[in-house]
């Protein structure tokens, strides 16, 4: 395909390969006259700008020369690799002169462009060549067998390669060998070629076919094979190209007879030794493979002869040809359509003339008639064989899972152009691992989750923390797994209950000394002073007046005391009045505490006091509002401009168990793109999720958008390091977020799981049979979850505890053949059971979630439950988790000192109602003794007497107080709600062999109860007694694994021998070896009982 053309009758030289951009130099030809018969001469430089689609070449410079040229070459002499200096133009003139031009000066428009010239030659200099190894060496040939070697560093005195050949003849061609730098060849129209060795300074071989018809017009060395060269003949009687090998110099190795008439010029591609250009008097430009003789390409040309042809050294697909019709054309041998170019020409014409009335004649011109020949689609076919430069020999591509696919085609040292022998065509698949630390940390995290060793893990993290903040975060996370988490939180915030308690006790002791003895008599005065008025009011039972009087007299304490006796409404009013009057700094705090308006604290505290606010929330907030309050505080902190406070918001979210917000906040503060910083985040998220699962009623299975994004990013990173199994383990599975489902599918398949049947690979995406129109990929994803849960189930099954179960309840398992457990063969770790949030194994769970919010807790157990599906709805559904879920408040001691005397009659009617109503059908002892909260106002003395007569708290009051206090175990609420449907169930008997367990444990609890003194312990024991019901239920159902039951029997035996510490050791053993979900409902309680028993020594 023709790319460019210039109307010149000229010799041509491309700029050297190093040069960028590409230039073409033209020098007026000495042999041919142009159409004007002008005798002017010029040296011009054009730029090859391929981004310009027009046929014009951009002229860069013209230099009017006094010479016409027989030969023009452009050598890279003194060029650096960047091509900053543009080499040297070497021209062969008519009168034995060789002229050196500086092309950069020509381009710059300088007048002095000649570097040097020498006219030592006789006659026209037709042959020139630059040595490619030493670019300062130029060989030239002229008449009288003259050959000179010029050193551009010392241009004045040329050398000769040896004695002149005899008889004297014109030298038409000269060429340096392409492999051996001291070998030179020359040829003459007589047909003889001579090879010179410059080291020996003599001709070493003469090549001639003795036909006497070879008129050498071209000579070229093989680019790769040192001993081979071609000679082209101008003679119409022998229009051939001969391929010679100097090792067999008696006759040509091959003769190419593709031209019909004499050949005028040849050019051998340096980029591909299989491409030899030749042009001849048959007006053809051919590209042949000199190694085979095959014609690969015929350039579409006009009917004119070309006398010069050159490959572009830099762009191997480009060549230029100079023809006798006075034109230099630039072609590409890669084929392609010329329509585009021609159309451009037509467009150009149209735009110049315009189609609309350019001459103002009032008549538009007829549309331009495009000549017929250009209208037809003219395709120029490319070379028959692909040129070497487009044959990609090497490649490396990444693929999923950090795999790198590489191939290379090692070229054997080529012989005779046969370079494809004995190649091995292998493709290598490699695993690339770049993030070792990331992987090892991920591994640690996985192990922690697998072994449930959260506390240890957190502790390690705390120890390794480099910043205070990091340490805080891990400390907070760790607390989630410990008993009395709220208390520990408070400690972390700098508030130790014990410390306060000590202080308090101290003060109390001091105070008590000043208390008047209650046994003495006192005087009731009814005088007219304020005391007297109050006395009168009291005596008449008019509390309200009495309180008013006290307030008026600023006797706050008296007012409050009286208000208590005066009933709830009065108390509330009095409190309000008090707060209105009081101006103390901590009034607002007290207000909030008394009014239970924690929201007020959280919403309006100074954010510098976020710690205090959080502490207050931790102390007082009820579990159901606790998270929301922490969230609120976190949000406030996050919205604050202070970046330090922003990060602290993370702590609030950790307390709140709000994974999604933690992620959002963390992401805002940290650059999460680096694997290790993502690892930092994921560690916290995974641990927090676990904590939330253990302690809160919150539905942890839902995965927020942001978390999903992070988790899938994390899984992607793991996958990219080749840890497919780990990636799968970390990927949240019960979500219908498309990106996660896609990744899961991809990971599963990448693991090399054999897929049943050939068509199944398409399953996860809705089978798109080369869809119509624009396919909506989104629609395809809805199919995924169900299919996947089936497919990936095997992972769950091979988890050790699950298999134990499967023996007993095989029907519960999806109908997968057990043998189809491919991960075994893969040798990679199956995802640990702890990771599998139930969504996988219970495909229906996800579907039920949104539809039945009321029963969410019962239907979304936090642990894999494939092993006990027949414990369906009629099993006490929440039993196995409620105790654990409320672990936090279980041991939580509400702050009695401030509130109890005041709060007692008040309670929290609402929360009490909540607790009482649902529990009504199944009354529990702790609540049956709940007193009537309202004291009737008409019984004043009864009310007054109580506080007066009893200094301590009546025991019956303390319990409801605790229950009703903020932060009390509201878990019961859930329990009761959930036990509603279970009340009618008749339980199976405990199997005889296990009955001993129940009797032993209950007996132990009774013993403890009888010797326990403080109400707190008693309460714990009561609670334990209740919770052990879960164990008995499991015994009834016979759903416990043999190892656990035998372990329990061991504990029972040790209880009988009163060896409680042994029992605790066994307890630890069971917990550490068993599936957490199986034992979590009762084992912690059992531990409490054993510990108490040990302590009490019963």
């Amino acid at each position: 395909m023709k790319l460019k053309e210039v109307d010149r009758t000229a010799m041509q030289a491309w700029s050297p390969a190093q040069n960028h951009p590409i230039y073409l130099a033209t020098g007026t030809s000495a042999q041919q006259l142009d159409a004007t018969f002008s005798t002017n001469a010029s040296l011009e430089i054009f730029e090859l700008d391929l981004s310009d689609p027009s046929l014009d070449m951009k002229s860069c410079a013209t230099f009017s020369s006094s010479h016409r040229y027989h030969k023009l070459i452009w050598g890279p002499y003194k060029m650096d690799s960047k091509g900053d200096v543009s080499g040297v133009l070497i021209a062969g003139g008519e009168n034995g002169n060789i002229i050196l031009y500086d092309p950069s000066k020509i381009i710059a428009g300088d007048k002095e462009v000649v570097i040097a010239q020498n006219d030592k030659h006789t006659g026209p200099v037709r042959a020139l060549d630059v040595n490619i190894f030493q670019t300062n060496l130029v060989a030239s040939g002229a008449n009288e067998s003259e050959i000179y070697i010029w050193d551009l560093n010392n241009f004045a005195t040329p050398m000769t390669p040896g004695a002149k050949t005899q008889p004297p003849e014109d030298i038409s061609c000269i060429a340096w060998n392409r492999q051996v730098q001291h070998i030179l060849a020359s040829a003459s129209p007589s047909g003889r070629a001579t090879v010179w060795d410059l080291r020996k300074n003599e001709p070493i071989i003469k090549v001639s076919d003795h036909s006497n018809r070879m008129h050498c017009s071209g000579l070229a060395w093989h680019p790769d094979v040192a001993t081979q060269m071609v000679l082209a003949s101008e003679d119409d009687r022998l229009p051939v190209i001969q391929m010679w090998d100097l090792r067999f110099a008696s006759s040509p190795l091959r003769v190419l007879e593709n031209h019909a008439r004499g050949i005028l010029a040849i050019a051998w591609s340096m980029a591909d030794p299989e491409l030899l250009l030749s042009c001849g008097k048959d007006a053809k430009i051919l590209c042949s493979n000199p190694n085979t003789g095959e014609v690969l390409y015929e350039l579409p040309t006009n009917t004119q002869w070309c006398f010069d042809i050159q490959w572009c050294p830099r762009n191997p697909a480009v060549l230029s040809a100079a023809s006798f019709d006075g034109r230099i054309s630039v072609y590409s041998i890669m084929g392609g359509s010329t329509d585009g170019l021609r159309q451009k020409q037509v467009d150009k014409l149209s735009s110049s003339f315009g189609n609309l009335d350019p001459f103002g004649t009032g008549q538009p011109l007829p549309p331009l008639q495009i000549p017929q020949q250009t209208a037809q689609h003219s395709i120029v076919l490319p070379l028959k064989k692909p040129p070497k430069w487009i044959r990609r020999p090497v490649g490396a591509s990444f693929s999923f899972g950090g795999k790198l696919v590489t191939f290379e085609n090692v070229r054997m040292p080529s012989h005779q152009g046969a370079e494809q022998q004995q190649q091995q065509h292998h493709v290598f698949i490699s695993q690339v691992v770049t993030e070792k630390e990331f992987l090892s940390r991920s591994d640690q995290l996985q192990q922690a989750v697998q072994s449930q060793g959260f506390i240890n893990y957190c502790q390690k993290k705390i120890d390794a923390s480099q910043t205070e903040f990091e340490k805080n975060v891990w400390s907070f996370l760790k607390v989630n797994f410990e008993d009395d988490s709220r208390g520990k939180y408070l400690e972390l915030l700098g508030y130790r209950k014990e410390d306060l308690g000590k202080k308090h006790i101290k003060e109390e002791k001091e105070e008590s000394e000043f208390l008047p003895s209650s046994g003495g008599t006192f005087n009731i005065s009814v005088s007219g002073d304020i005391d007297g008025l109050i006395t009168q009011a009291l005596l008449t039972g008019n509390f309200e007046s009495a309180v008013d009087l006290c307030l008026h007299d600023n006797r706050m304490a008296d007012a409050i005391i009286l208000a208590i006796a005066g009933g709830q409404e009065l108390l509330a009013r009095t409190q309000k009045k008090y707060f209105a009057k009081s101006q103390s700094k901590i009034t607002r705090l007290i207000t909030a505490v008394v009014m239970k308006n924690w929201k007020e604290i959280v919403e309006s505290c100074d954010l510098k006091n976020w710690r205090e606010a959080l502490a207050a929330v931790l102390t007082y907030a009820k579990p159901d509002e606790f998270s929301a309050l922490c969230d609120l505080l976190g949000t406030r902190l996050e919205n604050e401009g202070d970046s330090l406070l922003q990060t602290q918001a993370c702590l609030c979210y950790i307390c709140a168990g709000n994974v999604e917000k933690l992620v959002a906040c963390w992401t805002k503060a940290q650059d999460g793109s680096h694997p290790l910083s993502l690892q930092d985040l994921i560690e916290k998220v995974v641990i927090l999720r676990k904590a939330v699962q253990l302690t809160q009623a919150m539905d942890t299975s839902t995965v927020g958008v942001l978390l999903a994004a992070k988790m899938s990013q994390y899984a992607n990173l793991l996958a990219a390091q080749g840890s497919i199994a780990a990636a799968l383990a970390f990927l949240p599975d019960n979500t219908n977020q498309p990106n996660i489902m896609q990744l899961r599918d991809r990971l599963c398949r990448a693991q090399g799981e054999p897929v049943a049947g050939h068509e199944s690979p398409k399953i996860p995406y809705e089978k798109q049979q080369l869809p119509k129109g624009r396919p909506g990929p989104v629609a395809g994803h809805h199919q995924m979850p169900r299919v996947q849960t089936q497919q990936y189930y095997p992972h769950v099954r091979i988890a050790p505890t699950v298999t134990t179960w499967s023996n007993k309840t095989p029907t519960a398992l999806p109908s997968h053949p057990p043998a189809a457990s491919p991960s075994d063969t893969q040798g990679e770790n199956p995802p640990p059971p702890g990771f599998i949030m139930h969504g996988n194994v219970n495909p229906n769970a996800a579907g039920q979630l949104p539809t039945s919010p009321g029963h969410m807790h019962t239907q979304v157990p936090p642990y894999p439950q494939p092993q006990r599906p027949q414990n369906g709805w009629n099993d006490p559904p929440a039993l196995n988790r409620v105790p654990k879920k409320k672990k936090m408040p279980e041991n939580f001691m509400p702050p009695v000192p401030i509130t109890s005397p005041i709060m007692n009659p008040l309670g929290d009617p609402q929360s009490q109602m909540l607790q009482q109503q649902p529990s009504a059908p199944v009354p529990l002892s702790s609540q049956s003794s709940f007193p009537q909260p309202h004291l009737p106002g008409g019984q004043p003395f009864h009310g007054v007497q109580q506080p007066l007569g009893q200094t301590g708290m009546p025991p019956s009051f303390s319990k409801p107080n605790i229950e009703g206090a903020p932060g009390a175990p509201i878990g019961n609420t859930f329990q009761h709600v959930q036990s509603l449907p279970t009340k009618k169930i008749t339980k199976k008997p405990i199997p005889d062999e296990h009955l001993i367990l129940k009797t032993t444990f209950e007996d132990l609890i009774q013993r403890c109860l009888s010797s326990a003194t403080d109400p707190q312990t008693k309460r714990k024991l009561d609670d334990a007694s209740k919770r052990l019901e879960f164990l008995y239920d499991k015994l009834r159902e016979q759903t416990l694994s043999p190892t656990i039951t035998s372990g329990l029997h061991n504990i029972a035996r040790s209880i009988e021998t009163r060896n409680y510490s042994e029992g605790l050791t066994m307890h630890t053993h069971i917990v550490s070896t068993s599936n957490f979900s199986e034992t979590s409902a009762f084992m912690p309680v059992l531990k409490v009982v054993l510990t108490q028993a040990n302590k009490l020594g019963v």
Partner: protein
Amino acid sequence: MVSVINTVDTSHEDMIHDAQMDYYGTRLATCSSDRSVKIFDVRNGGQILIADLRGHEGPVWQVAWAHPMYGNILASCSYDRKVIIWREENGTWEKSHEHAGHDSSVNSVCWAPHDYGLILACGSSDGAISLLTYTGEGQWEVKKINNAHTIGCNAVSWAPAVVPGSLIDHPSGQKPNYIKRFASGGCDNLIKLWKEEEDGQWKEEQKLEAHSDWVRDVAWAPSIGLPTSTIAGCSQDGRVFIWTCDDASSNTWSPKLLHKFNDVVWHVSWSITANILAVSGGDNKVTLWKESVDGQWVCISDVNKGQGSVSASVTEGQQNEQ
């Protein structure tokens, strides 16, 4: 660390020009100057020849797997000026479509992100780029960009579908209004960025000029949710440039030289997480590159015959960064 986990003897009879794994990394497609395309099952370190596809009449330069949501589809392009789309139907691979719309060697094929549908971009030595869009019932609509790169387009690579800067996908049900873009590299030493206009026509959006010789390959980095777009380009001139655009609205791209090799660089490939670039050079060497904390590109591994090890220095650098 780079370790060979599988060596596949392809039994090709001539040079291999491309080897690509499918979406899951379980099947390998190779193509060769012997005019064939082969597909291997390489799961678990095995190598089972699934298909030996004959249909091209010249060397096959590249293969490209379509996203599996459309089935098992492989595109190949060849010196014979044809693009063939192969398809597995009932376990048998067959030619599904043949595109013969180019006048010269087709050097590169690349499937668009699956979100757009089934669209294939093909770059040819005739200078044109054609875009094949599946319109249903075996029909492919062809759009052609003529004169995309004078004397030849060597490579095409699509921009990821996720609009840079948006971490969160568009609300479901609502089809996001993607802007389709791809990059191409050619014998005019340019990398060009193309954008589909609202009328469905493709328009040159940007010229990236840095190379002084043919651009051999371009690779648009996968999106990892960051607002930056990244393109790697490699050239005959031995240079590899990383182009980045931080601001999609201004669409200004700036180059950074990754390295200047002593030989032509044939191929660049991003890891799925877009943080490692594999560079294949004319000296038959493959190197892996990673951007260090200070923004410099560091060679982390020489992959010779697929073997090599990641140098320790960079790994340490990452630790320090924490």
